[in-house]
């Protein structure tokens, strides 16, 4: 059952108009919920899960941005790349070069995608 519209209502596409007070009330309530998560709930959960606590400690100690989305956003990628690149370079290992086997794998990857392009359903 929908209530009668008043001039104080807020219109949101795809939703019933709602009163301005209720709309702002909801916004404040959810905002407080976020604040509560950051200051009370989140830390409480961390204390309850020992592994989570350990991971958090490591994140803090090593200054890892666990929210990073791409490899250039974290130092560990750069450190890891340098470490592995130099390790392999000094050992002179032949399996980490642009050789026939390596290129075959790149070609195999492209073939897999081409097969997908050819045989995936249109519908």
């Amino acid at each position, binding site marked *: 059952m929908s209530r009668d519209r008043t001039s104080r209502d807020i219109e949101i596409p*795809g939703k019933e108009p709602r009163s301005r007070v209720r709309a702002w009330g909801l916004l404040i309530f959810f905002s407080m919920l976020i604040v509560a998560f950051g200051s009370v709930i989140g830390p409480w959960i961390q204390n309850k899960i020992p592994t989570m606590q350990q*991971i958090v400690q490591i994140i803090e100690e090593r200054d*890892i*941005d666990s*929210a990073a989305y791409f*490899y250039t956003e974290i130092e560990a990628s750069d450190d890891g790349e340098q470490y592995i690149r130099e390790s392999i370079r000094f050992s002179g*290992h032949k399996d980490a*070069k642009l050789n026939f086997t390596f290129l075959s794998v*790149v070609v195999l990857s492209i073939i897999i995608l081409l097969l997908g*392009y050819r045989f995936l359903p249109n519908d």
Partner: protein
Amino acid sequence: MDEEKMVKKEDQEVVRDVGKWEWSELIKKEDWWAIWLGFIILIAGMVIYFPHSGEMKAKIEKANVEWGEAAKRTDAFKTIAWYKLSDAKKKAEARKIKTGKWLSKFTKKPHKWSGNPLGAFVMGKEGAEAKNQKGLEKYEKAKAAEKEAFAAAQEAESRAETAGFKDESLNAEAKSSIAKWRDTHLKASKAKGKTKNKPYNQIGYLIGLGVFFAIFFGIGTAAMGRPVGQFLVAFIFVYLITVLAFTASSQATMKQYGIGYAAWAIIFGMLISNTVGTPKWAMPAVQTEYYIKTGLVLLGAKILFEKIIVIGTAGIFVAWVVTPTVWLITYWFGQKIIKMPSKRLNATICSDMSVCGVSAAIATAAACKAKKEELTLAVGLSLVFTSIMMIVMPIIIKATFPVDKQLVLGGAWMGGTIDATGAVAAAGAFLGEKALYVAATIKMIQNVLIGVIAFFVALYFTTRVEAAETGQKVGLMEIWYRFPKFVLGFIVASIVFSLLYTSYNAEMSGLGRAMIDRGTIKGMSDLFRGWFFALSFVSIGLATNFRELSEHFRGGKPLILYVTGQSFNLILTLTVAYIMFYIIFPGLTATI
């Protein structure tokens, strides 16, 4: 009525293209403006950093002269000199020049804070000193531990050297001592960073950056014939929500949970649009496509193809054969078995689950012209499962894997399956330094695959799916008309920067990293890309309503798709990683 429906449909898409070509599109269409704006930033980066290649070369050369010979004494284990050489080379970064430092300050996101949100913007001298004092005790402790570990490592290495590096047990002892020193060294250097806090006031810079962005995107808006005045006013609102999203993601607990700016941008946007409603005057700056495509062109510059060689054939097999296999089988499963109502949602979920989370979801959604709600849903699923996997996977590996396989196999498994790079690093670090490095490297190689996947998705949807939907046969010109043009900018940026990176490295090993990775990319494109993605996610949130979002989730099909695909991904990645690292290339594994 039909026209009205069409307009509504177009409004919901992340990107949309009209099937015709005119030369005026070069200045009238967002796709092209994304390319122009993206390349303006990239070219500016080149102009700023490239003249400094001589200085970077000199730094690398100095490191080689100082440590190069000593580092080459043996390949039995990584000596102290080997690490010293590596550390010295790492200091060569073009972004550390004066202009680079200023750019970093100017584009800086709100600082990390815990109790008081003001700490994200302002910190006085007293606050900085208090923080430094707090960090000093830990640093002194870490420094003492490092000193002790270094002395032990020197002694162990010297014993191994006296035996001509031929005594296995002495070599093993030295290797273990050096590893302990590296661990303490890392802790000490991070602890040192926490004693170097300086006072800051970010407010002025944030205002300046907002003005810069308004003008930057305003130019394209004006050229595209849109009311620029309205855009500029509306942009203030969108920018403020973006700053708020970065502020939330900088809060200590949120950072620890890995809840990044993308999640907060969507949450705050949706919270506003679904409670008090997005103000009509703010709508001209709710331009998801415009911001996202510009960000994607910048992302293209980071897709450096030489990176895929880093860990050899084993690494590329795990990242480049398993990932497309999982993508295709999951997509097929979604279409044929669970009958996903939207092919575009299916493709976007497949990418974020199999490639690398949010960034892959953005690129795929844009390439297949998915709806805003579909991208939101895919990103949401990825964020939830990333948080779970970041905690659960290291526990499983520690409990079930043989000790000698935990670091490399565990690292490769996590790197190939956990969606977000940051979470991969956190989970890897939990197991140990080597696991962190392997996991982060596999994820980096997988990151490079985004470009290839986005291109195939754009091609498949343009030539196959859209042709089936419209019932028209697609000719070459039609493909050109419909193909999302910004993908071309994305690919060109990737090719150009890959070539530059390789040519710098050919000139001198490590110069590519100094000039491209830690120069134009980290010192320019990365500084802006995060902001552009955040602006687009705020726009998505401001234009999304819960009811439409829940319709896409009906029957829980997206969740079934994600869980099934990820389960298959976990099994296949583990199997292939084991075969590659322990059966086919055990020598390579021993080197790491």
